[in-house]
């Protein structure tokens, strides 16, 4: 049976580098480079760096 085709986009999780456990979810093209952006973290109440979490498996 043929494998199901992978979607063109993937949902990724950007986690706060302030180590608060806060994260935001984005959708990016599968072939795109990993996302990273400055966003507001409500736990530390500051704008901090958010980096995309490494995806595991064959997602």
């Amino acid at each position, binding site marked *: 049976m043929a494998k199901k085709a992978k979607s063109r986009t993937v949902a990724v999780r950007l*986690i706060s*580098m*302030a*180590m*608060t456990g806060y994260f935001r979810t984005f959708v990016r093209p599968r072939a795109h*480079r*990993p*996302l*990273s*952006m*400055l966003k507001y973290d409500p*736990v*530390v109440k*500051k704008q*901090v*760096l958010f*980096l*995309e*979490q*490494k995806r595991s498996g064959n997602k």
Partner: protein
Amino acid sequence: MAAEVVGSALINRAKSLPVPLVRFLARWPSPALQSAAPKSSPGLDSSSPASTDSTPSDLGTSDTDASTPPVSQILTASDTTVNRNPFEPWRHPSTGRWRPPVYSMRQQRELCKMAADHGVEELLWASKKATWFKEKKLIEQGLRLRNAGPGKRVKGHKWERTLSSRLEERRQAMLGMPAMIEEWKRLGHGRGWKKWPK
């Protein structure tokens, strides 16, 4: 002369006490009160002969309390009832049967509170409701928390146990945040970034 002055001061102090407390002290003079009685008030001594005249230092016969019999009559009624602590259960010497305290826990609490408010708590019998007893138990048993005390610790929730370490990690991360953002900007806003979190 000096003894009279001291005696009058004690009388005034006794008159300022609440009636239930005075009634109790007259009915159940504690060892502390009995030892102090011969100096200031001979009427309170149980070994002294019964005197019918009401001395001014007689704690039991205040003007407002007419129903209370004279102290001397009470004290000479029975030594076994007078010399025991009315705040504790009592075992009859001949029958061996236990009797509850003369004063219930609620009444003990009220008497101790009244005495403490008027600064005469040391004149009462030893009670579980006394301030000194409660302080002693507090020191011995702590705040009576489960698993709390010497050699034990409260387990708590996981978020409570890990809170300090997580806050420290967050603090360290925020200390390094400006440098990390500078590095991120220098590397083209993530284009050359290698350290992705797992």
